[in-house]
């Protein structure tokens, strides 16, 4: 009787590869927006429990990133922007990435449920599942609406943060969800306008690949026109103060101006790159101002805002 043993090449992946697998830049935005949802929620949460919630949300986001890289390793290898990721470069095997992602996903949801509350844990589970099964496995390769619908996963962290404190949902976190949801298309389509060849080579049906640059520019403007008033909604609805309102109106107007420039452009990628870069700053400023607004209100400079 003969026995044949086969071995996969032993991994040379180190900590940096596993950190890269968790998409740390996306994770930082997720943690920041979740922190805002957590801090503007009414009621009290013990700092240790709050920190635990944020760690679980961060790990859950990392799990989603790892599972996304596991599933998309084939198209990542064909795109310049993603070819240096740990799986396409061979530093990590797909199996290792899958095991890592599943472990973190289950671990983050279970710990959040045990130590914080079940509503927040269930919302985190839905977020991870939506990102993997709906966005990554289904929409991303099948429709130009991929990032529009899939953007819901990226918009849920402030809702999880809010649920960690209150154990439920309310209008405020839903408004924050809508801001991120409507921010996602102009942000990613601006990027895809100057990465069209990359997406086409990978066979991803992003809007510029399927419908062309002209239609993408039109859609960017339409979504930005919806986004700007939504950005001011926290002030209009009374859960953010005038300081937030001023910043939201000014930066919202800047977003529209940049989107108009993109719309009027026929050649060159300058306006798209400017819009992409500014959109990151825009979202950061809106959420940072919600925090500043809370601090200002707590010090009584503009009077208390509705909680």
């Amino acid at each position: 009787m003969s026995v044949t043993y086969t071995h996969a090449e032993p991994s040379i992946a180190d900590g940096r590869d596993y950190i890269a697998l968790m998409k740390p830049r996306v994770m930082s935005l997720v943690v920041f927006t979740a922190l805002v949802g957590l801090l503007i929620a009414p009621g009290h949460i013990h700092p240790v429990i709050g920190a635990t919630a944020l760690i679980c949300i961060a790990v859950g986001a990392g799990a989603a990133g790892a599972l996304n890289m596991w599933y998309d390793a084939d198209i990542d290898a064909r795109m310049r922007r993603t070819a240096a990721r740990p799986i396409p470069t061979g530093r990590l095997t797909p199996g290792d990435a899958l095991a890592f992602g599943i472990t973190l996903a289950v671990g983050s949801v279970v710990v959040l449920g045990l130590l914080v509350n079940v509503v927040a844990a269930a919302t985190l589970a839905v977020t991870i599942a939506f990102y993997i099964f709906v966005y990554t496995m289904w929409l991303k390769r099948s429709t130009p609406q991929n990032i529009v619908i899939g953007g819901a996963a990226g918009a849920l962290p402030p809702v999880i943060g809010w649920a960690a404190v209150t154990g439920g949902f309310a209008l405020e976190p839903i408004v924050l969800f809508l801001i991120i949801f409507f921010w996602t298309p102009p942000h990613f389509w601006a990027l895809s306008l100057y990465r069209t060849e990359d997406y086409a080579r990978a066979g991803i049906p992003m809007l510029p690949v399927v419908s062309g640059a002209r239609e993408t520019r039109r859609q960017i403007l339409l979504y930005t026109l919806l986004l700007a008033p939504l950005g001011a909604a926290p002030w209009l609805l009374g859960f953010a103060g005038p300081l937030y309102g001023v910043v939201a109106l000014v930066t919202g107007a800047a977003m529209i101006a940049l989107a108009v420039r993109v719309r009027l452009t026929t050649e060159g990628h300058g306006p798209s790159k400017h819009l992409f870069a500014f959109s990151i700053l825009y979202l950061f400023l809106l959420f940072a101002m919600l925090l500043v607004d809370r601090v200002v209100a707590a010090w009584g400079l503009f009077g208390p805002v509705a909680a």
Partner: protein
Amino acid sequence: MTITSAVMTEPANEQKPAPLSPPLVGEKEVGIRLTEQQQRARRARSIAIALALGALVILFYIVTLVKGPGVLVRPL
């Protein structure tokens, strides 16, 4: 079928342990020999897993103290 366990093929070095040889099937070596880089990576991963598990134990301990004896009795 004869399978022998992994054996040391070189005299043990007191300063630096020799790498494990692959297991033997009869007279033939099967399996793999880890390179120095692979051993370093495996050690780093093992330490990371140990640290993560330790952090989880400490986290559960602290949260239990924070929540008090009624840690499992709470509303949704």
